[in-house]
Structures are given as C-alpha cells and as structure tokens.
C-alpha cells in the first residue's frame, strides 16, 4: 500500500514536470505577452518590465529558474497581472474553490446516486426514462444558462438567496447547484450502469433467497459494487470542479481558483498560469490516487499495486 502510494507519487512528479514543460512552452507560444494592453506601452518600458519579472533572460534560463524556485522555495512566482504572489492567490482562492467543489460534489452525489439507483432498479420504466432524461438535461443546459436562471427564478424572487457574492454560507448553494449539475448527470449515468451490472449478479439472487427486503438488497448488497464506476469518476471530477468553475465563479461572484486559469491566460500572466496549472496537476495526481485507494477500499478484491 505504502509502496503503491510512493510509486504513484513519484509518477506524479514526472507528470508535473511534463506538465510544467508543456505549459511553459505553450505560454511562450501564445501571441502577446504579459505587458500587452489596450494602451500600448513604449518598448523601453516593456523592456524594463520584462527585466522586473526576469522575462528578459533566455528561455532556457527562465525554464530552470522557475523550477528552481518551485523546488527550493516552494514559490510559484509573482503574478504579472495582479500585484500578488501566486502562492498567496492560490492560498486565498483554493479554500473557496474547495468548499464550492465539495458542496457541488455532495449535491451531485446526493442527487445523482439516488437517480442512478432508482433508474437501475426500475430499469426501462418511467422512473428510469425520466431519471435519465433529467440527467441528460443536466448535461445539456450549460452553466451560463442555469446560473442566470437560478438567479432570476430564486434569488430575485426569494430573499433567501443572494444573486451573487460569497459572504454568507447560503451563498454557496446556488453556485454549487449550477456547478454540480453536469457532475450529477454523469454520476447518475455511471451509477445506473454500475448498478445494472451488479443487479444481474448471482449474489443478488442469493440475497433475495435469504429473505432480505428489497431496500436492503439494494443498499447493502448492490450499492457498494454499483458505485465503483462512479467513484472512479469522482476523483478527476472533483479536480475538474475545482478548476473548471470559471463560468460559475463569474456568474455568482465567487472568489475561486477557476478565474485564475482564464484571467491568467487572457493576461498572459506566465507565473500565475504555471502556478495554477501545476497546482491543478498536483490535485489531479492526488485525486486519481485517492479514487484508486477508495476503489480499493470499496472493492476488497482489488489489491492496490496490481490495478
């Protein structure tokens, strides 16, 4: 187990370095630079600014300098578009994204799993069809439509919810629902197919032969195995929820991490972009690992390390 984790973390470092390298050169290949603004700045000034951020050095030098700072000082650099260190920006936004992501995920699991289970148990009935239609609509209606709809239909009608902002705990609910909708749909689908697979297993028949009530057969005997495909999905999905929430964040005015990806890209902010990408990469490595470990925990037959 320990060996498996170490091994995967070592692989993770390789992933991160590969990721850094690709991102580094992609950023260099983007048109424009951090100092391209609507009002053009004199070339001399731009040169001074490049010096300020060490962007006047050779590409080779820049590549290793950043790596060195990451490893020796755990510093992800200073943002060229906002006057903060990248560490500070991630430090402030990650907890927010984490809370939002976790709430969205809980929502997705809380809604997706029951839908998936009900659809599987009552396969090819109206329950199944409407459940799956609901899931598909969750996928089809994009966040930039759901968000405003929720704002108009809930916030502006019921004083319970703010339109946007991140002040009271209530403010988490609407963005979390908007963000979690697609994940809900995926979880519902995956749970359904997982449950269908399990429900056709012989040991479900055994459980019935023991005289167990149906609810118990479903919850105790089928659910654990039936959730496996969804669990494998949840790891990367959580990472994606944290980083991919740009639209939801701007609609609901949430100070999360997703904005950094887009804003850094638009501002050609190399350090912020590299910082958040590396952080996200780390998150993916950890989440995939966590999903594998959780799978191992749920499925006694899987021995970690054998995959």
């Amino acid at each position, binding site marked *: 187990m320990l060996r498996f984790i170490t091994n995967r973390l070592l692989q993770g470092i390789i992933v991160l370095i590969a990721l850094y390298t690709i991102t580094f050169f992609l950023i260099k290949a*983007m*048109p*424009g630079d951090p100092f*391209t*603004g609507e*009002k*053009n*700045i*004199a*070339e*001399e*000034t731009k040169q*001074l*600014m490049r010096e*300020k951020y060490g962007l006047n050095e050779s590409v080779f030098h820049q590549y290793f300098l950043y790596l060195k700072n990451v490893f020796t000082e755990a510093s992800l650099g*200073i943002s060229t*578009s*906002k*006057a*903060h260190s990248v560490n*500070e*920006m991630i430090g*402030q*936004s990650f907890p927010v994204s984490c809370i939002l992501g976790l709430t969205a995920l809980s929502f997705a699991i*809380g809604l997706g799993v*029951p839908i998936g289970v009900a659809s599987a*148990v*009552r*396969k090819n009935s109206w329950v199944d069809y409407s459940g799956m239609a609901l899931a598909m609509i969750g996928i089809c209606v994009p966040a930039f439509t759901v968000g*405003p709809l929720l*704002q*108009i239909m809930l*916030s*502006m009608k019921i*004083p319970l919810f*703010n*339109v*946007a*902002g991140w002040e009271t*705990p*209530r403010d988490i*609910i609407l963005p979390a629902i908007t963000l979690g909708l697609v994940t809900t749909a995926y979880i519902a689908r995956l749970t359904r197919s997982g449950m269908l697979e399990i*429900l*056709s297993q012989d040991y*479900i028949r055994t459980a*019935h032969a023991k005289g167990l*009530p*149906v*609810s118990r057969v*479903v*919850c105790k005997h089928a659910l654990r195995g039936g959730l496996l495909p969804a669990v494998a999905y949840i790891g990367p999905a959580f990472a994606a929820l944290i980083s991919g929430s740009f639209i939801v*964040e*701007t*609609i609901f*005015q949430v*100070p*999360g991490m997703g*904005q950094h990806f887009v804003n850094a890209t*638009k501002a*050609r902010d190399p350090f912020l972009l590299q910082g958040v990408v590396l952080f996200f990469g780390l998150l993916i490595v950890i989440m995939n690992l966590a999903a594998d470990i959780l799978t191992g925990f749920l499925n006694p037959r899987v021995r970690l390390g054998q995959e």
Partner: protein
Amino acid sequence: MSFPSILTIARIPKIRKKLLKPLQGVLAVIACLSLWSCDSRSSVEVATDKGILIMGNSSEPKGLDPHVVSGVLENNIIRSLFEGLVIEHHSKNGEYLPGVAETVERDENSTVWTFHLRKEARWSDGHPLTSEDFMFSFERILTPSLASDYSFMLYYIKGAEDFHKGKTTDFSQVGVSAPDPHTLVVKLLGPLPFLPEITKHYTWFPVPKHIVLKHGKIGEPFTDWTKPENLVCNGSFKLKSWQINDHIEVERNPEYWDARNVGINGIRFLPINNSYTETRMFASNQLHITYRVPPEMIAYSGEHYPKNLRTEPWIGTYFIRCNVDAKAFTDKRVRKAFSMTIDQKSIIDNVTLGKQLPATGLVPAFGDYPASTPVSFDPETAKKLLAEAGYPNGEGLPDIEFLTTDQDSAKALAEALQAMWLEHLGVTVKIRQLEWTTYLDTMFKQEYDLAAGGWIGDYLDPLTFLDMWIEGGGNNRTGWSNEQFEALLDKVQQTGDQATRYRLLKEAEDLFLEERPVLPIYWYTRNYLISEDVRGWNPLILDNHPYKFLKLKAAN
C-alpha cells in the same frame, strides 16, 4: 440462467422512502442555512444605514500602488485612498478643487507651476505629508527599475523622460523641486495650461516615502507596502480589507485633512466581472452603483428602474483602424467610402444600445472644444468614391479581413458592419474574431485590414485623442502618418493660450479626418445603475467621481 432484473418483484414504496431521505436532508440543510443569517433587510439597506457605499468595480485590480497600476477600475479604488495635488470637481467637468495643494500658481507661459501644500496634510498613520513625499514619488515612478507603464504621464516635466529612459541617473536634472516642505515647484518642457487636469491622474499622486522605504528600496518592485496591513495613504479613506476577487473595502481616514466633510464611512468595491450578474445584484439590492449595464439590458433597465439608470457621455471614441499599408486601404477614398457607409445611428440604436453619440469626428465634444462634423452616413458619395478609387461596386478589391474581439457586443457590431458594407458597397468583409490579447497583439503588429478599436482619454484635453497618431506612436498602428499633422501638434505644444491651442488642435483633427485612417463610429457613454440612496453623484465626463462629497441616505 441469468436474472437480469430480479428486482421486478421489488416493492416500490420502500424505494421511494429511501429516495426521500436525502431529499429531506437537503431541505433540512436549506432550512438551517436560512435561519443562520436571517436578516430580512437587503445588503443595500444595511450598507446605507452604515454609511457604506457598495460599488461594482468590474474586476480585480492589478494592485493598489498608484505608480504600478493603470486602468479605470484601479483608478476608482486609488482615488479613494490617495489624493493628488488637486481633485476633480464634484459636478463640473474640467475644473478642480484643492487637494493636497491649497493653492496653485503658474507663470504666464503655464510652464513653471508652484503648488502650495497644505500644512495639515497627513498620512493615515499620522505622519505629515510634505513636498518631500512628492519629490520622492516623482523620482520613484520615473525610476526605470520600477517599470511603471504609465510613467509617460510625467514626461511633461523637464528632464523626466531622460531620467526614466536612463539617459541620466541624476534626479536633480528633473524639473521638480521642493524649496520648503510645503512648496512644490514643477518645471515643464513647454506650456501646458491644463497641468492641474493631469495631476488628477494617479501617476501624480504621492506615496508615503517613510513607508515605501521601510519595505524596500525606491525603485524596488514587488514590495509589501500595499498589503492591507502596511498600506498608508492620504486620501479620504484608508484600506480596511482586501480579499482577492471578492472585495476591497475602504473606511474613513480620520487623519484626512478634510475628514469632517467626508460624507460616507466607507466604500466596498466588488470586482464583478459579469455585467449581467451585476445588474441582477443591483435589482435585488446588493449594490448601490453598478460599473455598467450590458447593452441587452439597457432598455430593460430603463423600463424597470427608470430612476436608477444613468446614461452619461464619457471621454472615449469607438472607431475602426484601417491598415493604410494594406493594399485595399492605401487610398483614402476607399477609407472614406467605408466610413461613409457606416450607419452610426442604426448601430447605436440596434447594436450597442447605450445611447452613444454618433461620432461625427474623432474627439468627443466637451467643454469649449467644439465637435468636428465631417463624418456622416452617405452611401451615395461612398459608392462614387469607391468607383473613383478604381473599385466600382467593390470589384477588384482584395480580400478584406475585419479584426475584432471576443468582448461584449463586438461580434454583433462586426456582423452589422459587414451587412452595411455588403449592402452599400457590395463588399464582403471577412470577420476575424480573436481572443482579446491575441487581438491586441495582432493589431499592434498591424496584421489586419480593418480592426475594431477605441480610445478612452487620459485627461480632459483633445490632445489625448490626437497625439497618438504621430508616426511610430505606440498606439497608432495604422501605418498612417502625416508631416503637416505632426507640425500642427508641435505648434500646439509651444503655446500656452487655450484658444490658440484649440484652434490648432481642431485644424489637426480636421486634417486627420480628411485622411480618415480610422473610421469613427460612436462616442462612448457610460450606462450604469445607481441607487437613489446615493446623493451627490453627478455626471462627469472623466468618471473621476470624488467620493468625499457623496452622502448616503435611504430614499423614501
């Protein structure tokens, strides 16, 4: 034997009960949350009571160091924290009220200016503010290693440009001096009658020498002095809290010289990127003032919030750059033909929707400077001009690409223009929509035929719209230049007489419009929503509202 659905013998009610449980849980959580903070009053009502103004401010600022940032939204915050030599008048364009400087004197040529600083001026930590701080600030913003992108705003000062470009490292060569702690003398390159206008710009603001030096050297970038716990300022407010992408809040600065007359207790700036969200926040009383109203919602807001929607002229022009080096646009007749087939009014009424003004010239009308009028919608003449240029009905014109961005109504505008040119000139223009920075990069590299663009004035003088078109100007990028035009601008720099200046500037503008390297479309307006609780917020063309005169009082 397989048992695909043994559960067809399932008892349905059991399942239902199971499904209900999580649902009940969700409802319970919502109920708890709603009890948690059960203030029935809206954010705006609470804030008005507390005397705190909540303002939409579009985006997270680049920073709060007046010498490092550039941009409107930073200006909005910095203006509350710092105060320059003079401040904007709260209701009159082009006039000023005393700031740190109690009185301003100038020589007859408007070349040497003397500012008498008020003795009671203090930093927010109680430290006195002296001319030494100004000297330090000018030196700092001009220090090359600070790499301030707006330092050219000080180039009017004698020797400033040389110092900034490293030609000299001796700051005493720069034309500023502090004969005593409360006097500041500024020597300019030439006559500049509107210098006070320029000093309203944050690049001229003082920074606290003692604090800046505490956190680093004079030209050292990335110091911590603007962190909330360190920032010391001299404006009517001081920094209270700063959450990235969430809010910046400023509170009353008791050390401010005119603290008694500051009407509100604080301002909360919200970086609301999404203008639709912002409008909805306003509608549900979460904001006093929005940064803007999206075009689609202007008419709607006018209907629903007639007392709140404001539409005010703003000092900016939207235009299309022509690449005069591109084969199609070398001939000014073609440029004019394209310009004359733009139905500005229709675009304003149908696309931009913000009651913008049709740009009949380049410089928007303000104060004593009369608007030019040569730009008009005249498809018949346009057709003739195009034919004269050798392209009757657009035949023979090379492919034309119209460069535009992914922002706001840029696409709809491009589509409308495309239709107009097709209808009136028979020319099919290809639309190339690019991500913002890519667009800028492409435009700066002059890799376009036509490019959407605009310019917001930095200060209240026509020069801010005209001096960019000189040969090699960083923001020209059309490839156009004209010796006569530049000679006129040179003459403008030499005179201190406002009437003469304006006459020369008008002459330059007319020449420019005759050549038509850019096709003006409209003059900007600002559309925003403002709560009736906010008192003392008057239309200002530069949108530099001095916050100290505002008052908050619940309407009705």
